[in-house]
């Protein structure tokens, strides 16, 4: 029972972080808080997938002792952590940077045009200005 809890508690932690981000995205009415919630959601998914790559007793995915004598060392797959989720999440992190930049630039234009960043005041101003 204790082994089951230890083996699965990090999934529960990342799902709780994901639900915090989800509540910020859908429950708050300020637009900046929605952008922050989107960021939290995205980072929790990145951390969850990177945690799938762990192995018991494995070290970082750089070959040990490859500079010592010039010969090729013996590599076994159980010694090293799985490098494939790390590679895929590198792309996801940089895409998150671009998405946050575009979202913040849209917020700047909305504030300059309407003068407010609250969602309900924004809907009233859009309806009365058309």
């Amino acid at each position: 029972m204790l082994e089951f809890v230890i083996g699965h508690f990090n999934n529960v932690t990342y799902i709780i972080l994901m639900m915090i981000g989800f509540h910020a995205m859908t429950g708050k009415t300020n637009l900046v808080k929605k952008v922050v919630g989107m960021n939290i959601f995205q980072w929790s998914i990145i951390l969850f997938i990177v945690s799938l790559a762990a192995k018991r007793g494995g070290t970082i995915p750089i070959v040990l002792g490859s500079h010592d004598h010039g010969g090729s060392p013996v590599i076994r797959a159980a010694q090293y952590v799985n490098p494939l989720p790390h590679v895929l999440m590198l792309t996801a992190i940089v895409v998150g940077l671009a998405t946050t930049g575009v979202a913040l630039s849209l917020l700047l234009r909305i504030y300059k045009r309407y003068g407010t960043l609250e969602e309900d005041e924004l809907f009233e101003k859009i309806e009365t200005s058309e």
Partner: protein
Amino acid sequence: MRGGQESIVIRTICRLAVPFVQIFGLYVIMHGHSSPGGGFQGGVILAASFMLLAIGDSLEEARRRFSTKAVTVLLSAGVLIYASIGVVCLVLGANFLDYGILPVPEPRNIGMLGIEIGVGATVMAATVSIFNDLITFE
């Protein structure tokens, strides 16, 4: 003290720290093949040095070192370097981005270094460009 500029203590410390941050960013890009690092990480560290100059000193100082036109040119040049290495491999007879056919010793190592430089340049120019546009909007 001109308008928009920090006090002289902050300005001196930031100007002293910027070259060391840039050397570290170049080290992370170039040593991506044998220690943790690579193109994306080194590019963001290089962009952080320009942000430090814009925050610690004034924005005109950072604009003078790295103008807006140079940022836009570097943004396109990074993707161009990456794609042109692939087209060179295609012209020499192999598949697209198949580094085994380049006429240098250890071709796969040198091909990887070339595309990491391209990716690092693009990521640095994109981060500095987004930062500049978000600040100077009124």
